[in-house]
């Protein structure tokens, strides 16, 4: 039981990730795929961020005045940094994916994968 409570952050991110992953693999609509991709990455970000938390600690902006700094008092800044990077990466991937989708739409006038495949079959 205390596993469920003590690690609930993990359960949440696993759930999110599964949703996103399923959307990526199973959905036929290209935009839905990409949205799934975003959910997937968001889940990972959630995972990282949740690892940085320490019970009753504050954000890592050190108060100048105090003379002795206790790492216990401040949450771990590293995951935040990594995730800033990951977010940007995610945004960029999203942008590129959308650009490609736009090109696809220009070519095939549809965003359904199977319809596109149909069109290609007819071409052959």
């Amino acid at each position, binding site marked *: 039981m205390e596993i469920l409570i003590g690690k609930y952050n993990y359960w949440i991110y696993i759930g999110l990730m599964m949703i996103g992953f399923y959307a990526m693999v199973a959905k036929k609509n290209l935009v839905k795929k990409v949205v799934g991709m975003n959910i997937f990455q968001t889940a990972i970000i959630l995972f990282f961020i949740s690892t940085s938390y320490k019970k009753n600690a504050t954000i890592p*902006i050190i108060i100048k005045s105090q003379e002795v*700094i206790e790492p216990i008092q401040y949450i771990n800044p590293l995951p935040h940094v990594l995730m800033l990077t990951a977010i*940007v990466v995610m945004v960029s991937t999203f942008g590129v994916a959308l650009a490609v989708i736009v090109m696809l739409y220009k070519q095939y006038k549809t965003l359904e994968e199977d319809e596109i495949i149909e069109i290609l079959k007819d071409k052959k």
Partner: protein
Amino acid sequence: MKIFAIIIVILTGAVLIYSTFDMPDWGNPNSPASVHVSPRYIEKTIEETATPNAVTSVLADYRGFDTLGETIVIFTAAIVCILLLRREDDKTH
């Protein structure tokens, strides 16, 4: 296809859940991540970089190269969008 996807997803989920049991609890201040590398950032950020915001100092200084990399990534995204989509006058494509 759908069933195949579901199987993959469930498999991955199983691995994730299985591995979770060995992970430190949420907010545990003694988890390895909190004690190995990160304390230095918190303790030394002011005296080494004169920047109270540890996130900023780590972002732009301790791991500055990552940030350069990520700036490059977003730069890439822009270049890619221009390369793929922009059509000023060329009638081709």
